[in-house]
């Protein structure tokens, strides 16, 4: 194996590593979604009548929180393939 091949392998490896590290951002989004949905379910259990009101907030909230994980995912994918 000459030096160029080693450098290419190192580049590939560090790309994959960088993509993996970038996905750490999804941890926060996962925790956030868990808290959000957990509180949604407990609020729904206390007051089932408010389901219609809360439903709108639910979808927008999911979309906004999920966007953070998507940011991490797009950084990871750009790392891997661009």
């Amino acid at each position, binding site marked *: 194996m000459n030096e160029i091949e080693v450098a290419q392998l190192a580049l590939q490896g560090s790309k994959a590593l960088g993509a993996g590290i970038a996905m750490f951002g999804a941890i926060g989004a996962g925790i956030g979604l868990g808290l959000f949905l957990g509180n949604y379910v407990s609020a729904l259990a206390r007051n089932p009548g408010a389901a219609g009101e809360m439903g709108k907030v639910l979808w927008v909230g999911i979309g906004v929180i999920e966007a953070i994980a*998507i940011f991490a995912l*797009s950084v990871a994918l750009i790392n891997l*393939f661009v």
Partner: protein
Amino acid sequence: MAEEGSFHIDPISQFAINPLFELNIGGFNLAYTNSSLYMTIAVALIGLFFLIASKHRDLIPNRMQSAAEMAYEGIAGIVRENAGPEGMKYFPLVFAIFFLVLLGNILGMIPGSFTYTSHIIVTLTMAVALFIFITLLGFSIHGTHFLSRFLPPGVPKVMAPMIFLLELFSYLVRPITLAVRLFANMMAGHMVLKVFAYFALGLLTSGSITLMAFGLVPLLVNVALIALELFVAGLQALIFTILTCVYLRDALVIEH
């Protein structure tokens, strides 16, 4: 990179912008690209749909008319709820934005087509234009009193400069988060679809029976992902619209 070396995973090339015909005016490159083509298609589809749907205007609506009425009522409800009754003046703007974003996302789901909302320049242009419009609107309605939204009442004098800076920053960063949310969702979604399609392709064409059987897994995942992407396409258009209304309300109404 595939081990066989038969193909190279390339989920990025689907976002390439190709000029369909060149046009240079005064040193500016104004080429009509595939991005412009899909925007034209989107606007034409929206215009055509609402022209045909509102042609007869019966008391008992036919299918197209009731679809158009549902769209109108849905967006009007969002505007009323999030921007208040004063916001209804800007209903045409919000309606146009919702359908431009929605059609961009949905047209991108057609295989082989182009998603113009997956380019940050498109979403950022929309978001910055909205931001400038809303800020100017706030100043024209409230004058310099509009600045008071950056300083909530009852803040201690010592904290005031810091709170002001924080509020100002959170206001200025709005167009960026609005644009990046839509663009990153669309780009990442389409890249994931392409990556899984390449997985399936690589395994199904590998020639060995075991690998081909495993190739069904990414294929089925891709079907589920397409359903998810269709849902996200609608959801992101809705979020873009709702946030536009929320920002509009901030310009129209000063809470204190």
